[in-house]
């Protein structure tokens, strides 16, 4: 498939935003049980949620550039019963709205206690809103990943690993950003977020590595023989039916030599996982914001490359019909 910058930015930016909010709410939840010190709602929770909101908003804006007719985008909510894309279009604004309300509640300190935990912690309005936003973050991961994983003949995507990796990579980049952000806003939490970020980065490496190994072993189900229904081992396409390109030759090919795919694969394995993991590991034993900020920058660039590769490695069966330019 042709990697489109708008879709790459959409999926990576909302992934960071979801991961960042989940990091904030993780700290919030742990503070309920006195496992971490409670933070200033304004400086950390509200501002952090605002950053998550900006990231998801930027992803939403990027997604419009994917559409041929962006002015009709509102119609995309219609088929939520059958279409994962429609579900994503519903869940993304819902998540953004919940994060906005969470930021508003935390900024203004509207925290009326609604219930009490047996251990003594108080469940206030912010906890309820945050829980709703966290659930929506997971729902959004499911919707985004299922857009790709639900297509059976794009076999590189049609696997539970697609969903697992969307969650892991979003959380890895989000927790890394949370660690970098917390050095300024909540220094007590930096080590916690750094540890989480390191764990998610290593788990992400395992999940993405598993997907790479799986995809390398895939044998195509469709062949030129089933595509045109002629049983012969040697079939060569002589003409695609037109002189130059068409939508079919542009949309479904990445258009790069095989060497590009190889170096992009190594680049994203290094920049998305190996280098950030080393920087996060170093940050666990050191201090200062610089390594964490660098880790986030390198990791985000790596995950953009990862998403480019995710699209480029998927081989659409329609390409069987477009093998010769004649």
């Amino acid at each position: 498939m042709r990697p489109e910058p708008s879709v790459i930015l959409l999926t990576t930016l909302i992934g960071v935003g979801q991961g960042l909010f989940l990091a904030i709410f993780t700290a919030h939840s742990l503070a309920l049980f006195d496992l971490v010190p409670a933070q200033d709602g304004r400086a950390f929770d509200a501002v952090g949620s605002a950053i998550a909101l900006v990231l998801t908003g930027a992803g939403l804006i990027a997604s419009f550039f994917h559409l041929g007719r962006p002015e009709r985008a509102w119609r995309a909510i219609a088929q939520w019963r059958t279409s994962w894309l429609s579900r994503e279009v519903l869940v993304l604004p819902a998540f953004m709205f919940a994060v906005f309300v969470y930021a508003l509640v935390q900024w203004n300190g509207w925290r009326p206690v609604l219930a009490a935990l047996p251990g003594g912690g108080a469940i206030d309005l912010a906890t309820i809103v945050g829980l709703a936003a966290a659930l929506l973050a997971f729902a959004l991961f499911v919707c985004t990943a299922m857009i790709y994983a639900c297509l059976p003949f794009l076999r590189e995507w049609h696997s539970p690993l697609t969903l697992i990796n969307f969650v892991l990579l979003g959380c890895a980049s989000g927790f890394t950003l949370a660690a970098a952000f917390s050095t300024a806003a909540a220094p007590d939490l930096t080590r916690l977020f750094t540890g989480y970020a390191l764990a998610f980065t290593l788990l992400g490496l395992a999940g993405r590595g598993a997907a790479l190994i799986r995809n390398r072993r895939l044998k195509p189900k469709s062949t030129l023989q089933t595509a045109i229904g002629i049983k012969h081992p040697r079939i060569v396409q002589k003409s695609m039916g037109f002189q130059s390109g068409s939508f079919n030759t542009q949309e479904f090919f990445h258009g790069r030599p095989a060497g590009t795919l190889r170096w992009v694969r190594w680049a994203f394995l290094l920049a998305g996982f190996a280098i950030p993991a080393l920087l996060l590991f170093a940050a666990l034993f050191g201090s200062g914001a610089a390594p964490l900020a660098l880790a986030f920058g390198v990791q985000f660039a790596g995950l953009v490359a990862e998403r480019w590769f995710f699209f480029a490695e998927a081989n659409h069966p329609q390409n069987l019909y477009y093998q010769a330019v004649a």
Partner: protein
Amino acid sequence: MTQLALVIDLNVCVGCHACVTSCKQWNTSGAAGPLADLNPYDADPTGAFFNRVQTFEVGEFPDTQTVHFPKSCLHCEDPPCVPVCPTGASYKRPEDGIVLVDYDKCIGCKYCSWACPYGVREVDPVRKVMTKCTLCVDRIYDASKPDSERKPACVMACPTNARLFGDIHDPDSVVSQAIRDNAGYALMPEWGTHPSNHYLPRRRTAMRVHPDELERADNPLKADGLLPRPAKAEPTLDDVTSW
């Protein structure tokens, strides 16, 4: 239930592209607006087409066959492109099974083209919406046309009658009979899309000659040759038979 479909006879198709040009002509002139046609006389002509004829070479020289393969939307009975559409612009008509795109609802997200394993949907580069074969829905129900012309433009144009059109759910229709009698098959059956369009396979017209047919079995002595001419007095063939 009606399921309109095309049956394409690969044994008859000569690859003349008449179906392609007639399809483009009909569908660029209709109420739905023109189909894009970019740089038609320049170096890189492109545009939206609903129908393509591709050519494949099967086998190794000298034992090869050239197969011309017309390719358009197969109007699947279980179309994977329809449920993925977020707006409902892509739909399958319950009354005749034609898969259509509502150009006024399409947002141009291209997701349906990703969901089609056959690559028969093309984005119109000017209108920025997804387009595809309509089975000439604006022609086959046109009451102002005589019955003989209420067929898709490609079927009307085919000079060798390689394209048949009809209801594949009606066992007595010309398409159902053609599929039954000539081993009609569907493309990429592995995905369970149940395409409505079928293809009739190439059929080699070989004369089978058995060894005993090379020698006359009723002439064991191999005494071939001219029979002696009848004598002048004997009746000739003309005299004993009435022509």
